[in-house]
C-alpha cells in the first residue's frame, strides 16, 4: 500500500513538474478564523495612499522568484499575494519562477529578460552587487523595512544593507529515516553522510557550493574559504564519500526521501518540514557542528523598468499579514518580526525553523560570493570528483574505444580498396 502511495506521489509530482508544497501541519490547525482575519487586515493596510499612487497608470512589473516561494491562495483560506497586490495597487504582476541562483544569474547576464524584482540568495546577491547587476534601493519607499529583525540586516553579502530586503532564511540540515537509523537525534552530525553502514542509502547535494560547505564544516574550515589547499581537501573528502552515495540530486531529494528510496540526505529546513508532513518516519536535524544559514532577499536589478513600483512590491511583501501568509505557506523561517510574532507558538519554538540565537550566532555562516578563481577551482574539483570513475571500469573503456576506432578505420580503408579494385574491371 505504501509502495503504491509512493508511486502515486512520485508520478503526480512528475506530472506537475513541481515540488508539492503544502502548508506545515503546525499551522494547518490555525483554521479559517485566522485566515479570515488576515484577509480583513490586508484590506485595512494602514497607508493605502502609498499603494494607490499608480492606480490608473497601467503599470506592470516582472517578478522573478523561486518556485513555490509565495502564497498563491491554492490552499483554502490563504491569501493570493500577487492578486492582492494587483487589487490594491492596480499594478499588474508578471510572476515567473526559477530553480537555481545560477539560472537567475544566467538569465540576467544574458540580458534577454528584464525583471523588476528578483529574490536571489545571499552569495548571489554579493556577486550581483560586485558586478553592478542590482541597484541600491530607496528605503524611503520601503517603510516596512522596519519590521526586519536587527540580526538579519547588514549581513556580509550586503554590508550596508543598501541593495536587499531579506525575505526568508533557513538552515541546511540532515533529513533521515528515524525508523532505520538508530542514532539519537542529538548525536547526529554531518559524519552520518559518510557513514559506511548506510552505503547506497545516502543522497548528496548536486551543487558544488552546498556540497563543499558540508565537507568544509567537517574539516573545520570556513564555508567561504578560497584557500586552494582547503578546497582540495574538501574535494578529497567528497571523493571519499562518492562510493557510498546513492546519487547526487537536488529537488529529487523530495521524491526520493518521501518514497523511502534513500535514508539520509542533506536538505533545506523549510522543504524538509514539508516532506516530513508526507512521510512521518522522517526526522530533521540541524547538525551541532554548524551549518550554512541562507538568506533569500528581494533586490531590484539595474535593468528594472519600474523601480518605484518594484519598491512598492517589496514593501507590500513586508506587510505583516502578507509576510505571515507567505511564511505560513512556504514553511521557511522569517526575518520579519511581526510575521514571526503571528506564528503559532509551536512553530516559533521549533528548533528546526528557529534554532536558538546562540547557535545561529556561533555555529552558522552565511555564504558570500567567492572570487572567480575560487569558483572556477571549486567547479573543476567538483567536475573531477563527479567524473572520476571506479578504477575497474576506467581501465578498459579507453583501450576498447581505441580498438573500436581502429577496426572501423581499417574496415573503411579495406572497403575503399576493394571498391576501387572493382572499378578497374
Amino acid at each position, binding site marked *: 500500500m505504501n509502495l503504491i502511495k509512493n508511486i502515486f506521489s512520485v508520478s503526480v509530482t512528475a506530472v506537475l513538474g513541481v515540488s508539492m508544497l503544502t502548508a506545515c501541519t503546525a499551522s494547518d490547525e490555525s483554521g479559517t478564523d485566522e485566515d479570515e482575519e488576515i484577509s480583513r487586515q490586508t484590506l485595512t493596510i494602514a497607508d493605502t495612499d502609498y499603494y494607490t499612487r499608480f492606480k490608473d497608470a497601467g503599470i506592470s512589473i516582472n517578478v522573478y522568484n523561486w518556485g513555490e516561494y509565495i502564497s498563491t491562495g491554492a490552499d483554502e483560506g490563504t491569501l493570493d499575494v500577487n492578486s492582492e497586490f494587483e487589487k490594491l495597487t492596480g499594478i499588474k504582476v508578471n510572476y515567473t519562477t526559477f530553480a537555481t541562483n545560477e539560472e537567475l544569474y544566467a538569465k540576467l547576464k544574458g540580458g534577454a529578460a528584464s525583471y523588476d524584482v528578483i529574490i536571489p540568495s545571499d552569495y548571489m546577491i554579493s556577486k550581483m552587487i560586485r558586478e553592478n547587476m542590482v541597484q541600491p534601493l530607496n528605503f524611503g519607499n520601503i517603510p516596512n523595512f522596519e519590521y526586519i529583525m536587527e540580526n538579519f540586516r547588514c549581513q556580509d553579502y550586503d554590508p550596508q544593507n543598501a541593495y536587499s530586503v531579506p525575505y526568508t532564511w533557513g538552515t541546511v540540515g540532515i533529513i533521515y529515516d528515524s525508523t532505520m537509523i538508530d542514532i539519537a537525534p542529538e548525536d547526529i552530525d554531518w559524519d552520518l553522510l559518510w557513514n559506511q553502514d548506510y552505503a547506497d542509502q545516502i543522497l548528496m547535494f548536486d551543487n*558544488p557550493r552546498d556540497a563543499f560547505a558540508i565537507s568544509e564544516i567537517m574539516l573545520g574550515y570556513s564555508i567561504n574559504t578560497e584557500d586552494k589547499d582547503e578546497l582540495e581537501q574538501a574535494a578529497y573528502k567528497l571523493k571519499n564519500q562518492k562510493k557510498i552515495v546513492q546519487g547526487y540530486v537536488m529537488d529529487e531529494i523530495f521524491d526520493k526521501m518521501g518514497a523511502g528510496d534513500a535514508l539520509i540526505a542533506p536538505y533545506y529546513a523549510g522543504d524538509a518540514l514539508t516532506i516530513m508532513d508526507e512521510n512521518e518516519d522522517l526526522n530533521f536535524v540541524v547538525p551541532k557542528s554548524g551549518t550554512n544559514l541562507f538568506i533569500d532577499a528581494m533586490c531590484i536589478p539595474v535593468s528594472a523598468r519600474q523601480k518605484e513600483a518594484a519598491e512598492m512590491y517589496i514593501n507590500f511583501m513586508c506587510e505583516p499579514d502578507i509576510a505571515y501568509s507567505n511564511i505560513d505557506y512556504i514553511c521557511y523561517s522569517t526575518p520579519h518580526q511581526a510575521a514571526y510574532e503571528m506564528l503559532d507558538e509551536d512553530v516559533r519554538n521549533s528548533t528546526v525553523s528557529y534554532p536558538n540565537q546562540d547557535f545561529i550566532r556561533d555555529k552558522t555562516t552565511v555564504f558570500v560570493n567567492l572570487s572567480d578563481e575560487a569558483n572556477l577551482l571549486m567547479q573543476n574539483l567538483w*567536475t573531477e570528483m563527479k567524473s572520476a570513475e571506479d578504477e575497474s571500469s576506467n581501465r578498459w573503456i579507453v583501450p*576498447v574505444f581505441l580498438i573500436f576506432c581502429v577496426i572501423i578505420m581499417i574496415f573503411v580503408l579495406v572497403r575503399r580498396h576493394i571498391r576501387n579494385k572493382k572499378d578497374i574491371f
Partner: protein
Amino acid sequence: MKLKYFSAPYLVWMIVFILVPLLMIAYFAFTNDDGGFTVKYISDVGQYANIFVRSIWLSLIATAICLVIAYPVAFILSRMEKHKQGTMLMIVMLPMWMNFLLRTYAWMTLLGNNGIINYILGLVGLGPYKLINTSAAVVLGMVYNYLPFMILPLYSVMEKIDKSMFEAADDLGCSSVQTLFRVIVPLSMPGITSGITMVFVPAISTFIISRMLGGGSNLLIGDLIEMQFLGNAYNPHLGAAISFVLMVIILVIMTVMNQFDPDEQVLM
C-alpha cells in the same frame, strides 16, 4: 522552377535558427571575455577527455543495443500484412506521444531501491539490487527513449524490399543466414546508417537521462555543457568550446558512418 520560392521561409528559418547559432558557438569557443581570439578554451576541453570517452562509449552501447533490438522488429513489421503494420507501427510510436521527461521519471520509479522491480524481485526473495544510479541505467534510458528512432528508418527501408528478392535467394540456394547477410543487410544499409545517426547523436548529447537515471555521478558531455552555463562558474566560452568539440566528433563519426552507405549519401 517556381517551387523554389516556397522554400524561402525555411531558408530564412535555417539561417536564423541554425546557421547563426552555430556561428555564435564557434565565435564563443574561440574568443575570451574581451572578444579577443584564443584557443585556451578549446585546449581546456582536453581535461574532460574521460567524460567525452564515457559519453561516446555509453551512446555507442545504446546505439548497438537499439540496432540489435530494432533490426528483427523492423523486419517482422515489414513482413506483416498491411493492415497489421499500421497498428504495430502505432504501438511502436505510442511511447513517443508521452513527454520525454515523464517517461524517464517513470523509469526512476521502476528502478528505485524501493521501486517496482525491486519490490517484485523481493516477493520471490531476490534483491534488492542496485538498479538506478548506474551507467547501465543510463544506457537503458537511452535505449528506451531512442529505440523508435531506430525502428522507423529500418522499417521504411525494409518495407520496400520486394518479397521476390527472398524467393530468388532461396531459388539460388542461399541458406537463411546467407539471405540475411547477402540480401537483407546490404539492401537495408541506408536504414541502418540513418537509424544509427538518429540514435547516436541525441544519445551522445543527452543530459537529462544521465541526471535522472545516473544519479549525477555518471557525468556525460551534456551535463558538462549544462554546468558551464548553470553551474557554479558561469563560463559560456568553455561551454561553447565543449559543444564545438562535440560537434566535430559527431561530424567525424558521421563521415565514417557514411562510408557504409552504398550510395554514399550525406545523411546529415
